[in-house]
């Protein structure tokens, strides 16, 4: 007999990243209910965004990026789905191709060459300059997470001082709606 005990080993343990769209009643505490589910059961949240999408029906859309084995992802979806204020849970990763975008604000502080280099990079990445002083810029970039991370990386040596990111908003491609 082997000496291994709990937990189960009969499941596929490969960890994958999934993007979930969750339609919820916009009522007090709903976000905390969802965040509490993740912390209480030991699941990861990599990104979470929430905003009301249909004001007259008090409906919000939450986009969660999480990672786990197939079993864990199924559990996460089932646990989300059984929350009373949750209407629907869709796994965009399983649905096929989806669009994922986030927005970042990046502040660069400095003078001289660094400053000019930062501006050139911003142009190359298609970022907008939304604030400028003699010693600083604030850029806005919208794009896939990879683009934003690349931009952050190259901007680092040019005096990048502050980053604010929204987290991911996502949607399936094609005519299908949630």
């Amino acid at each position, binding site marked *: *007999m*082997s*000496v*291994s*005990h*709990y*937990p*189960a*080993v*009969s*499941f596929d343990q490969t960890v994958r990243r999934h993007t979930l769209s969750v339609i919820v*009643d916009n009522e*007090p*505490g709903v976000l*905390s*209910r969802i965040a*509490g589910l993740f912390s*209480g059961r030991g699941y990861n949240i990599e990104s979470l965004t929430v905003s009301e999408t249909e004001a007259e029906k008090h409906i919000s859309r939450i986009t969660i990026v999480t990672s786990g084995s197939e*079993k864990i992802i*199924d*559990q996460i979806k*089932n*646990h989300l*789905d*059984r*929350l*009373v*204020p949750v*209407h629907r849970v869709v796994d965009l990763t399983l649905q096929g191709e989806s669009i994922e975008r986030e927005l970042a604000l990046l502040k660069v502080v400095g003078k001289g060459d660094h400053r000019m280099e930062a501006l050139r990079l911003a142009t190359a990445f298609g970022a907008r300059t939304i604030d400028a002083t003699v010693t600083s810029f604030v850029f806005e970039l919208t794009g896939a997470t990879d683009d934003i991370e690349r931009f952050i990386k190259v901007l680092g040596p040019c005096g990048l001082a502050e980053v604010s990111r929204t987290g991911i908003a996502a949607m399936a491609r094609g005519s299908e709606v949630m």
Partner: protein
Amino acid sequence: MSEMMTGAEMVVRALRDQNVEHLFGYPGGAVLPIYDALFQQDFVKHILVRQEGGAVHSAEGYARSSGKVGVVLVTSGPGATNAVTGLTDALMDSIPLVCITGQVPTHLIGSDAFQECDTVGITRSCTKHNYLVKRIEDLPRILHEAFYVASNGRPGPVVIDIPKDIQFAKGVYSRPKDNQHKTYRPTVKGDLSKIKAAIDLMSKAKRPVFYTGGGVINAGPHASALLRELVHLTGFPCTSTLMGLGAFPAADKQWLGMLGMHGTYEANLAMHGCDVMINIGARFDDRITGRIDAFSPGSRKIHVDIDPSSINKNVKVEIPIVGDCAHVLEDMVRLWRELSPQVDKPALKSWWGQINEWRGRNSLGFQNSDTIIKPQHAVQRLYELTKGRDTYVTTEVGQHQMWAAQYFHFEEPNRWMTSGGLGTMGYGLPAAIGVQLAHPKALVIDIAGEASILMNIQEMSTALQYRLPVKIFILNNEYMGMVRQWQELLHGGRYSSSYSEALPDFVKLAEAYGSHGIRCSDPAKLDDAIMEMIETPRAVIFDCVVAKEENCFPMIPSGKAHNEMILNDFTGDTKTVIDAKGRELV
């Protein structure tokens, strides 16, 4: 039909419209308006408990024994925090409750006011759902919605936190509607194609077993009747979890007894050796599976559960069926009758032969004594002497609970109330009070331990106040027996803080609470003493002095598989049966 009334009046009116006859509670500053409204009517009877924790357990006992929603009313702050254990207990065991908590007035919320706490924050993870009512316009809907959410889908506790100003505010009341929540619609009908696949798998089984749980009880007496029909139709053996006892009659030939950590040899080995497992309303809890990577290695599994998140949580199954047990069982019985499949009779015969061989081990056998009462014997005598009566049993948590599950046999559902998932000591007495209120004529017995009973002993006053003749049968071994047993098995017999020192004289304690006390330590006098308890028309505390260091066997030691049980005739060293890895488990 709409009427103007205050929020407090709405609460009482909604309880009436939801057919709530009994309400368990304790008053305080933030619920005074509701208590005032209760005072001015006599449909809803308020049962005053002695601590809010008792109120929740009483409501659980009431709900579990009657199939109705249990209702609790407590004040803000400590009233709400005292209710937390009971709410968690109800969540783990899927008991439908509505718990109304008072809250400081809306304008004081967040100011650290007197007796303020973040009730919805604290109870978010220990309720199925909860509400903070901020507008009087929402109150009638939320009240009715709470009952709907508590009792539909997988049942559970729901908290409604009502600030005091909302209780005074006036608004328009509305009556309950069907489908009270705008979107919450749990699946009750199982997917027919999956049910068909399940029937097909069952019909080809060579070594099948039914493994049933509390979900069958929660689906109502009809589900138990259907389970019996299906088990008889198929001729398969049937075992059950702690929570499911009574759904299938213990006197039936196809009954294997309870399974799991303290289950019978035949039930656990049937689970280990089966080729088709039919799980109806159970959740592959760790008390059931034991070592999970060695759990029932050769079987294909069917799992019927109303909660999709219970499926594939601990054990991967081949045929998951999401739905209410009663609905799915009905389809299964109908399909089985329609198809009347040819089962593999020789294979089933040899399977039963194997099971009968396991039964021959008599795993619940124990060494009885003439000089000292063995706890197993005490429960056996209690069972024999109450047979044929209208009996309900509650328990506390520990060895006595397992002995009750092993030696007290249940023929009907809703007769057995115990804290399974959370394992809450102190559950039994308040639960018995709730059961007795729901069944005033019945014999209600709390099988207790001397340590557990002291956790909510104050509820004796409640029993006295409402003249509830509950019987408390204490298996007194002067130890927190299960803690002691684990210390023997895991920690070299160093009984750290598990000896029940400075116990009260339970006979005098009974008398102090205006009830009757009995003590018995002589096996020869046990039957007469039990009869005296049964025939006493008021509450009784029975101090049954039993063997001190009896272990609760059979047992699957933690970290071991079903086929590695230790039995009553175990002769090895109990201190070495659990290895280092197993010790980390609970």
